[in-house]
Every structure is written in structure tokens, then in C-alpha cells.
């Protein structure tokens, strides 16, 4: 890890955060007979990084897709800045989505578009009154944030895994969201690139004062990023605490995740 990255990681404070930005109450979601979330509850505060861990298929991605309105829960409330996401009509949902960024596990960059077009796409959709100059400036700033200014005219297929993740992060941040949902941001990346992504997430969080929910299996990522760790097991919030608290837990189910 670079000295700068180490310094960024070490300086991450775990101070008490502001008011709640996401409140999830009694969330239920099933697919056929498979109940994925059953009475799940969670509160995320301003500028807080909450990492959600759990086994594959435990419903972690389902949870954040419910938050952004890609999936509709069977019952329960998902309040984002006070708006109950499942009750919103498409226009209201679009407004809420401008405040939420979503980093997809597989990046989900549009492979028929250049990096510039990928970044311009959400801008043009949400802020239709922007001039080309403003758009160019925002694209440039977003790419500068992730250190990839020189890739602006490249196609996603020309980029490495780490670069794709950075561009996806730039696209997520371009609308200056107040909340960012990360779906396994370091999966499939080598340890060095993973640490770079971790430090980038923290750097950008400090710069834009965002709140985050991070889905991750990567214990280094969890340790580096998390203000609070949630263990999602059997559809419920099985454990909730800091990384250190959970790491030293005597509960067998929790210990499984922290054993190397």
C-alpha cells in the first residue's frame, strides 16, 4: 500500500455521525418460496459507511436494489431522506435517485459508449439544462477524481479491471450523490488494486461527504472502509457493530466470517 493510501486509511475517523439518511423498517422480500429478507431493519446516518456482509445469496444485493428502487419489496419501509421508496411514482423515484449513486458489481458501463459518453449519460438525463461546457467540466472533474483523465475517449473494452471500476465510480459520483451504494466494489480485483479502490472510496467520501452502504466479502475492504458492519444472515440483521466488535465476537456464525 502506498504511504498516501495508508495515511488516508489511518486517518479515517469513526466519529459519531449526523441524522439518518436511510431508514429501513421491517423489510420483507421473497422470490417464489425463497424468503430473502425477513423483517430486516437498518439505519444509515449522514457520512457513515455501513458495510453489509453475508453469505452468497443472503440477499445483500437484493437489499441495495430495493433501496434504489430496482426491486420492489413485498412489505416494509425504505425511507431515503424521508421518502418511502416503494411508494414513489416513477418521477418521484427519479428525483430520489439523483441523490443516490450505485456502483454495480460488474461496473455496468455501457460498452457501446466511450468513457465520456458513459459519464455524460446520467448528466444529460437528470440535468437537461446543462451546457456542453458544463458537461465537459463535470466529466473532466469526475475523471480527475479517479485519476483517469486520459481515458476520456477510450471504450470500456480498452480498460483494465481496476480502470473500469474507477470509471464506474466516476460515473456514480458525477451527479454528486449524497448516498452511494457499492455492490462488492473490490470483487475480482487484485489486492493492490483493491486497496487503491478502498482508499479512493474513502477519499471521495471525505471530499463529497457521502453516506455509503457497501456490500463486500473482502475483509480488507471491510476493515478499511467500515464505520459499522452489518451481518446479514437468514434474512435478518444478525449482527451490527464496529469491525473490531464483530472480529472479537464469540458467536460462531460471526466468527466464520472473520477467520482467515
Amino acid at each position: 500500500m502506498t504511504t498516501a493510501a495508508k495515511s488516508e486509511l489511518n486517518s479515517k475517523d469513526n466519529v459519531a455521525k449526523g441524522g439518518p439518511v436511510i431508514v429501513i423498517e421491517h423489510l420483507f422480500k421473497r422470490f417464489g418460496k425463497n424468503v430473502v429478507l425477513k423483517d430486516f431493519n437498518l439505519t444509515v446516518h449522514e457520512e457513515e459507511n455501513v458495510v453489509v456482509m453475508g453469505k452468497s445469496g443472503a440477499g445483500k444485493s437484493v437489499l441495495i436494489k430495493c433501496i434504489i428502487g430496482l426491486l420492489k419489496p413485498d412489505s416494509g419501509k425504505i425511507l431515503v431522506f424521508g421518502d418511502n421508496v416503494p411508494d414513489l411514482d416513477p418521477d418521484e423515484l427519479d428525483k430520489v435517485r439523483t441523490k443516490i449513486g450505485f456502483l454495480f458489481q460488474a461496473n455496468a458501463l455501457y460498452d457501446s459508449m466511450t468513457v465520456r459518453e458513459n459519464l455524460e449519460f446520467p448528466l444529460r438525463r437528470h440535468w437537461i439544462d446543462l451546457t456542453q461546457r458544463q458537461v465537459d467540466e463535470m466529466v473532466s472533474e469526475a475523471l480527475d477524481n479517479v485519476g483517469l483523465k486520459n481515458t476520456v475517449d477510450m471504450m470500456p473494452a480498452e480498460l483494465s479491471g481496476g480502470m473500469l471500476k474507477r470509471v464506474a465510480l466516476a460515473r456514480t459520483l458525477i451527479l454528486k450523490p449524497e448516498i452511494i451504494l457499492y455492490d462488492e466494489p473490490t470483487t475480482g480485483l487484485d489486492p493492490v488494486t483493491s486497496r487503491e479502490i478502498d482508499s479512493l472510496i474513502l477519499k471521495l467520501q471525505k471530499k463529497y461527504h457521502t453516506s455509503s452502504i457497501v456490500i463486500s466479502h473482502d475483509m480488507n475492504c471491510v476493515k478499511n472502509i467500515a464505520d459499522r458492519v452489518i451481518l446479514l444472515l437468514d434474512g435478518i440483521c444478525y449482527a451490527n457493530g464496529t469491525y473490531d466488535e464483530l472480529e472479537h465476537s464469540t458467536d460462531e456464525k460471526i466468527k466464520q466470517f472473520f477467520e482467515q
Partner: protein
Amino acid sequence: MAIIEDTQDFLDETGSMAKFTGHFFSHGLRPRFEVKELFAQCYTIGYKSFPLIGLTGFIMGLVLTMQLRPSLVSYGVQSELPVMVGIAIVREIGPVITALIFAGKIGSSIGAELGSMKVTEQIDAMEVSGTNPYKYLVATRVLATTLMLPILTILGDAVSLLGAYIGVNLSSTTSLHFFFTQVFQSLSFSDILPAIIKTFFFGFAVGIIGCYKGFNSSKGTQGVGISANSAVVLSSVLIFIIDLLAVQFTNLLGLN
């Protein structure tokens, strides 16, 4: 029992496709319209398909003429060759063959493209970016296929008749003017209009099935391949069914 399960699957699929089509009309055709993307799709789907449609149309006209000639010669009515070829191409062979080639090229392309976008979460990313995928991806593609296929059919028919003219001239000498005068004198609006109108339905079928299969692609590259393949198969079958219904309908209206 396998037959019961298959029937149930078929009915499920039909219901799901009907729902998708309903969603296209209820959500896809509302403002705000994706005009820029529609033009981009018209260019890709229409303009870029013309070389293939033109080439196959030309060969079809040429071969049809060469195949028909011996039969007509044996009856001593070879002078009617332009009339027969003209009617066959304009009324039936042109629209159907063009639609089948279109389904093979565009149906598979839409199925694979949207299937790939689905499995790599690009469609979800689009939705999160404040874009309705039905409007941006489905409505533009379905409208483009619906509008472009009739134009391609007219152009394909024209190239096909040119191929037929060359076919006629392989064993006799006929002027271009005489050939086309014979062709157009034998055709009426009741030949041309129903043939063109049905191509709007062919185009709609190719577009909506390609989009449906792509949107419902299962995870993985295998799923994308299956989507592309089934989009072509299903739209080809539907083209024949629509053709059959169109013939029945024009018969009912007394247009034949």
C-alpha cells in the same frame, strides 16, 4: 407430464410477452421521446441493413426469373415472365423474404445486445441513471424496426425487380422500359398496399420479440446466445403467421 409442463410454459411465455407488449404501448410511447436514439436506431437498423437486403433481393429476383422461365416457355407464355415475377415479388416473396432476412440480422442483434446489457446490469444502470429502459431501449428499437422494414421492403423489391430484369435478359433481349412497363401494368394498389402494410406488422414483431427476449435473458453468455437464437426463430414463425392472417384479411376485404 412433459406435455402439460410444456403447454404451461408456452402459455406463461405468451402471457409474459403480451404483458411486455402492453408495457411498450402504455409506457414506451409516452413523452419524453428519445428522438435522438430513435434516429440512431433507424440508421443502424435501416441503413446498415440495406446492403444485405439489396444483395439477397437481387439474387432472389434473378433466380426466380431463371427458375420460372423454362416452365413458361413450355406453355409458350414466356412473354408473361415480367408480370409473373413482378406480382410474385411485390405481393409475397419480397415482403416475406425481406422480413425473414431482417429477422435474422436485426432480431438476433437486438436479442443479443439487450441480453448482454441485461446480464451485465447495464439496463439496471440505465434505470438508476433516470432513464426508462422501455423508452430508451425498447420503444426506439421497436419503432425503428416497424418503420424501417417497409422502406427496406420497397427498396428490396426494386432491387429484386432489377435482378429479375437481368434474369430475363440472360436468354432474351428486353428493354428496361418495356420490362418495368409490363411489371407495373400488371400491378394495382390492391397488390402493393396490403403487401407494404403487412411489413409494418412484420417489423413490429421482429422488434418486440428481439427486445422481449433480450430483456428476459437469463444470466450468463449462454443465456444471451439463447435469447438471440430464440428471437430469430420466434419472429420468423410470427412473420409466417402474420402473413397468413394478412392474406385471410385481404381476402375478406376483397383486395385479392
